[in-house]
């Protein structure tokens, strides 16, 4: 099962503004919740996100525990050339995930 989904138009006109939606499957445990015995559940979140377009970073984000579980991010970019858009999520406990999607620009 995919751990992350990136949604963007498969093709676009050069110069067109496209929206990129990225969703990762992650619990985003805040570190503020407790078990019924009062023990704090340690924090386990995705702390940063970056998106590159043919290797050049176009968007990045620092995430905190206030981001909902299964973090969803939507942002935009100008379609400049055909290639790949890659997203990387990194987080606590060595979490790292990269997904990429191809885009063709006419």
């Amino acid at each position, binding site marked *: 099962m995919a751990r992350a989904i990136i949604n963007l138009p498969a093709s676009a006109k050069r110069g067109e*503004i496209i929206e990129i939606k990225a969703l990762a499957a992650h619990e985003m445990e*805040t570190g*503020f*919740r*407790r*078990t*019924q*015995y*009062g023990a704090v*559940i340690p924090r386990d979140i995705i702390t940063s996100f970056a998106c590159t*377009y043919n290797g*050049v970073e*176009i*968007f*990045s*984000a*620092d*995430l*905190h*525990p*206030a*981001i*909902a*579980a299964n*973090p*969803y*991010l*939507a*942002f*935009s*970019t*100008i379609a*400049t050339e055909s290639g790949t858009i890659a997203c990387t999520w990194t987080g606590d406990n060595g979490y790292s995930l990269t997904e990429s999607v191809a885009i063709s620009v006419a």
Partner: protein
Amino acid sequence: MNTDSTRRNARREFLLAAGGIAAGIALESAAAPPPIRAAASRAAASAEATQQAIRKITGAAPVNKGKVRLELPELVDNGNAVPLAVRVESPMTPTDYVKAIHVFTQKNPLPDVASFRLGPRAGRASVATRIRLADTQTVIAICELSDGSFWSGSADVVVTIAACLEEI
């Protein structure tokens, strides 16, 4: 006469027993406050903590009101996933663009929510995500423009079910 006094005695015993049980319950709850309540009172960053978090981003630079539109539902049923969108009025040209957007809350355990860094390649200054809200509060978005100025916008949200209070 005899039957009347036994009935009264029975009633008195019942009342005593009932009182004892009630007192017992009260004692128990006083002796062991649920851990949830302790967590909730310790949580919640103050407005001052939020100001400090904002100052860490802006430094000494003044924060102007305007340009930033924060889109949040006015009434939130479930604070665990609240859709949030931030749009900034900006031409997004190589010389005039939004460098970063930061989101803060006033009553969550931590003031920081997220920081987004974008550039002229974004085409339009707009980001969306889903956040957690622990209480009815004001959410603040601050954007940093390429000329170094800061602009802010805010939205008031009423939350009926707060995030991060449930036990597991």
